[in-house]
C-alpha cells in the first residue's frame, strides 16, 4: 500500500482537550492565506471519520478522556496523531491539577509532537514535514 497519496492529502480533525485556545488559533492561522496548508492538500474536516490526522491540543482534562479515545477510534486507519503545544505534550503550565488525565500520549498513541506555547504556524507546518518523513520512512521500512 502506497502512502504517497496519503501523505499529500492529509485531512485534519482538530480536537481541543482543554487547551487555552492559543494553539487552536495558530492551527486555524495555518489554514489562512499567509500560511495556507491547503497547498499541501491539508484540509480541516468536521468529522473524525473523514480525518487522517488528529491534531490534539490541551492537557486532556478528565471529562475529555473518553471522548479523545472515541474520536481516536472513529478515525479510520491509517491515521496520525499530532500533539500541538506543550500543554498537550507535557502539561505545560497545567502540570498539576485535580482534573487532569493527560498528557495526550497517556491516552492515545502520538506520532509527532509540536513543542511551543503556542508553536508558530511555521512550526506546525514543520511538524507536517516531520509527519511526511515519518510516513516515508515507514513506507521504506515496509518495502
Amino acid at each position, binding site marked *: 500500500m502506497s502512502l504517497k497519496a496519503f501523505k499529500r492529502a492529509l485531512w485534519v480533525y482538530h480536537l481541543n482537550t482543554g487547551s487555552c485556545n492559543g494553539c487552536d488559533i495558530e492551527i486555524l492561522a495555518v489554514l489562512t492565506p499567509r500560511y495556507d496548508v491547503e497547498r499541501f492538500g491539508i484540509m480541516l474536516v468536521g468529522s473524525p471519520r473523514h480525518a487522517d490526522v488528529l491534531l490534539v491540543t490541551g*492537557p486532556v482534562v*478528565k*471529562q475529555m478522556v473518553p471522548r479523545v479515545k472515541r474520536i481516536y477510534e472513529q478515525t479510520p486507519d491509517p491515521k496520525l496523531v499530532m500533539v500541538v503545544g506543550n500543554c498537550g505534550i*507535557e*502539561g505545560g503550565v*497545567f*502540570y*498539576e*491539577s*485535580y*482534573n*487532569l*488525565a*493527560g*498528557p495526550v500520549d*497517556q491516552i492515545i498513541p502520538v506520532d509527532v509532537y509540536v513543542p511551543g506555547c503556542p508553536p508558530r504556524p511555521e512550526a506546525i507546518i514543520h511538524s507536517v514535514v516531520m509527519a511526511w518523513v515519518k510516513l516515508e520512512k515507514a513506507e521504506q521500512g515496509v518495502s
Partner: protein
Amino acid sequence: MELLTPEKIIDSFKTALGDSFIDAKIYQCEVAVKKNKFRSLWVEVKKSAFRDAVDHICHLQQYPHLAIISSSDLGAEVELIYHFTIYYGHHLEELSLGLRVKLPKSDLKIPTITDLIPGALFTERETQEMMGVEVVGIPDKRRLFLPEDFPEGAYPWRKDEKGPPNDMLRVLPGREPK
C-alpha cells in the same frame, strides 16, 4: 439616578442596615499620568442582613452588575465577597463594590439572590460546587463546571480536609508534586 460618592454610599448602607452593618473601607489609587482615581468600596454585613444589603444595592442602581462571587476559606469561616459594579455607563463614575459576608463553617448557607438578579445563577452554582456553600433557594441545583463523577463533599477551593482529595490530584508524569 443620583450618583452618590463612596462615602455617601457607606452612610446609606448604615442607615439601611443599621446594626447589621459591620464595616466598610474604601480603596483608592491613582492611575497613570492624569492621576485619575480608581476606587473600590468594600462593605461587610452580617449574614442575616445579606439580602437586605443586596436589595439596597439594587436601589442604588436599577440593574447593578454582579461580576462574580469570590470565596475564601479563612479557616473557621468562609468569606464570600459579592463583587458588584454600579454606576456603569458614566465616564469615571463607576464603582466596584464588594459586599462581604462571612459564614461560619458550621452553617454554610446563604440565600439566593437570583430573584433580584437573575444573572447571579452561574456564579451561585459555581460557589456551591467549588466551596461547598449551600445557596438556599437556588433555581438550578446542578453543577456548573465540575464533572458528574467529581466526588460529593469535596470542594476544590477549600483548604481544609474537604479540599480535593489527594488521590484526585494528578501531577503529570515527569514532575514531582510540590
